[in-house]
């Protein structure tokens, strides 16, 4: 009687142990599958960060004159490009690429915004930024601000902007700047980076895959 009882307890224990092992194995397999889905992003053209980076508070101004802070990056994906309106080659080319990205992502469920931030706040007033971005797309957002506020943001994003003074023509100086497009996630974190050569088709395809696993 007692031995039978003990053996049934043992059997129950064994059953419990086997179930636990099976559950663990299933969990391991599932997590492996999910991790693989993450790892799948390694073949993107974009640089997809292992951990998205939260942004320090910043305060800029959009082309309508409204404050543009961390809040303006919450609740939707944002493509950000840094440039300036006196830039006749790289910036119009990139905004035109972004316009093509916007056309390709028009039917996406995830809301997306396109933001052009000046690295030349001395010449780029909100009005000037508005004229520039709306030439490419009426929904694009132009952003400028004080030199300090902009460099505070560029520094934390690893964006480079360096003014090159022109000895002949002081007014028409150039600004060297990062030519990549940054992707900010709906939690306002720096999530991925698209580096030149920029192709709208690749950017849109990569974005869809990034947004799917988010």
């Amino acid at each position: 009687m007692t031995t039978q009882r003990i053996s049934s307890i043992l059997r129950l224990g064994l059953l419990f142990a086997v179930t636990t092992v099976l559950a663990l194995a299933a969990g391991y397999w599932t997590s492996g599958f999910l991790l693989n889905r993450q790892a799948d992003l390694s073949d993107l053209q974009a640089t997809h960060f292992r951990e998205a980076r939260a942004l320090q508070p910043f305060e800029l101004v959009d082309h309508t004159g409204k404050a543009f802070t961390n809040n303006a990056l919450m609740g939707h994906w944002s493509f950000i490009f840094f440039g300036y309106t006196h830039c006749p080659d790289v910036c119009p080319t990139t905004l035109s690429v972004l316009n093509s990205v916007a056309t390709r992502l028009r039917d996406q469920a995830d809301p997306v915004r396109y933001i052009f931030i000046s690295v030349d706040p001395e010449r780029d007033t909100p009005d000037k930024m508005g004229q520039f971005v709306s030439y490419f797309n009426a929904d694009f957002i132009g952003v400028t601000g004080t030199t300090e506020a902009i460099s505070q943001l560029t520094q934390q994003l690893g964006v480079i902007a360096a003014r090159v003074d022109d000895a002949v023509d002081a007014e028409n100086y150039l600004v060297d700047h990062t030519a990549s497009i940054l992707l900010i996630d709906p939690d306002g974190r720096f999530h991925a980076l698209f580096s030149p050569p920029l192709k709208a088709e690749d950017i849109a395809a990569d974005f869809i895959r990034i947004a799917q696993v988010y």
Partner: protein
Amino acid sequence: MKQTSIALGTLLALLYSLITVADSSLGVTEAWIREAPPGADVLAAYMVIANRDVDTVTITTISSPDFERVEVHRTLVEDGVARMVPVESLQITAAGRVVLEPGGMHLMLFSPRRQLRAGNSVALDLQQSDSASIRVNVPVVKINAADGDDDSHHHQHH
């Protein structure tokens, strides 16, 4: 048939407008100026310059009655950073050609003297070191990728 003759007429008009100086050994094709957003102070021009001569031709200065100043620049992207490097003179080797295109070499057109819109035409004077010069009339073109990819090449002719 009618379309062909219109196309031929356009082609002839383009050929005529692009190459107006016959004594230069240079031929300019695929020339266009990117229409800029309103209020822009700098525009970019692109073109292919071919040298039909057996000697290298050097372009020392480029000017335009429509702009204060014209410079040749090359866009260089190094470590993800775009830099514009001034090009002092354009050398086109014998039977060679230089290509000015978006993201590469281009003409910087500073301070337009009039508002330029798509459809306008701008005269550019290319001054050679041997004192010959060539005037090209370059159309202003609106490029916005979603409007139709790469319509920058619709001025191409053979």
